[in-house]
């Protein structure tokens, strides 16, 4: 039990957390000189009534200060959108983002699903800020989902089970 009392090394924590499979999102918002976004997998739904979702944003991230007080959009990525995830995670020249025109809050075109939010509450989360947003709009399409586990991207297929699984 003594091990549990000592603070885990960052490596050990990462090793542990990398075993938890998540989806991948790009959180987008209006930056000072145009739409901006950051890849995040620390996304979770919080409440249905009112509709609240949460992202955990690193304090040292460039987007941190702007996101705290702005409306934002969580773009949940489809399996084929891994290049976008890499781009907004800082990879050079991975791809060019395309922005949905006429969106109130900047968002990507054609994500698997998107959740538009206005700021609701921000909480201290250590070196992160827990940003809870109130959902103002949303949408989705069909397709496989992009996943992240073991520090690698993967996909979760939409169900294509046929009658064989019923009978």
């Amino acid at each position: 039990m003594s091990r549990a009392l000592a603070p885990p090394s960052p490596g050990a924590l990462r090793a542990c957390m990398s075993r938890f499979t998540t989806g991948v999102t790009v959180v987008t918002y209006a930056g000072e000189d145009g739409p901006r976004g950051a890849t995040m997998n620390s996304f979770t739904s919080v409440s249905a009534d009112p509709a609240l979702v949460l992202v955990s944003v690193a304090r040292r991230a460039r987007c941190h200060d702007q996101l705290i007080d702005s409306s934002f959009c969580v773009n949940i990525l489809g399996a084929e959108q891994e290049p976008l995830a890499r781009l907004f995670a800082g990879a050079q020249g991975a791809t060019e983002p395309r922005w949905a025109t006429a969106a109130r809050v900047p968002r990507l075109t054609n994500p698997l699903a998107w959740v538009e939010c206005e700021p609701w509450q921000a909480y201290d989360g250590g070196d992160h800020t827990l940003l809870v947003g109130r959902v103002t709009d949303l949408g989705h399409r069909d397709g496989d989902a992009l996943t992240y586990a073991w520090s690698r991207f993967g996909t979760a297929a939409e169900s294509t089970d046929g009658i064989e699984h019923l009978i």
Partner: protein
Amino acid sequence: MAARTGKEYMERLAASRPTVHIQGETVTGGIQDHPAFRNVVQTYAELFDLQHSDEHKDVLTYTSPTSGEPVGTSFLTPKTPDDLVKRRKAFKVWADHSNGMLGRTGDYMNSSLMALASAADWFAQANPAFGENIRRYYKKAREEDLLCTHTLIPPQVNRAVAGTQQAGGKLAARIVKEDDNGVVIRGARMLATIAPFADEMLVFPSTVLRGTPEDKPYSYAFAIPNDTPGLRYIAREPLDYDRPRHDHPLASRFEESDCVVVFDDVHVPYERCFALGDAELCNGFYSQTSSVVHMTHQVVTRTTAKTEYILGLVSLLTEAIGIEQFQHVQEDVAEIITTLEMLRAFLRAAEADAEVNEYGVLTPAFAPLNAARNLYPKLYQRFPQILRKLGASGLMATPTELDIQGPAAADIEAYLQSATLSGPERVKLFRLVWDTCVSAFSSRQALYEYYFFGDPVRMAGAYVKSYDREPYKARVQVFLDRA
């Protein structure tokens, strides 16, 4: 009312006006006279008549608990081992009549309806009306002796996405509207065998549904008359070429039409719905009601009859041309015999290990039936292959009835005779072998046996997932651990 006669079946069909597109023609009624259907309709009429024949009526019918009239045995809710045996014997009489070539005789869906109605309480969980509806519908089908077809799978557009998402959710049959007395269905389902000459269409759950709002319009089970307005069938090219029975002995009797089903805003009244908007109910439809078990009991009985026919046919063939004594021929015949004995053993095991289910129905054991269901799609493929190999050039030495009676008669007599048969007898036999393993009809049979219960590949996946292997793993583990 009671078990129908062939004449009564034909009369009802004559009064029905289903819309069938076939070879550029739109037929609305008169199915029993149409060249594409009249022969197979005649065969179905024969099946109904068997219910009244002195030889078979005791097995093919029982006394209706409501009307006191004799009704079809496949509607019998089995309570005792004798009931199960009687059901199997009845399946066998009909299957024998077509050598197992008719895949959709009425007893197939009747068995399903019987099980579904017995599990009415399960349907009632969602809404008491559904329980009432399935019970009432089963009774109607039994008392009117209705011939039902069914349609399950969504159109084959893009199997990379779920059935509910074909072409962005705009193709598969779905509920588009709900009004005061029912729902409106738009879209298509892939196939319905015997649709043009059935009385009713059962539209039952297809792919696995998610409980999300998007899947709600695809969550349904209902039954409608075949000539419901807005319902259209697109029939494939008929394989009955309207040729003499001598020349096309199977296709001229047993050509079950397969149709794509189009719902053009078909209105379905609530009293004909058994499930609506409930994904969980739809996903449990076959397994939770034991419906699949009773259907498979019928199917394995039919495939047993079909295998008996193949064994008889191959034996006449090998005798006719004197190839019985060759060892590889015996090996092939042995393969057919082992398949037959295996199917019989499965049937017997399923009946011997039957148990009363939670709805009080004596239900055959599914494990042996499920094994048979997973094996036969592949085992059957071997039969036409064996017949082609053993029949060889004889399968092309198959002049027609007109030749046998025409100017070539003497040549046929002389050169097409065989070790045990005269020329005309041998031609007649070889035409049957040809129709079992070479003709278009035979290819459709092979495709049917491969796919009608679903894709064998995915069936195997579902089979493995549902099979409890823990005890076997544990046993091996114990052995590993043994000092």
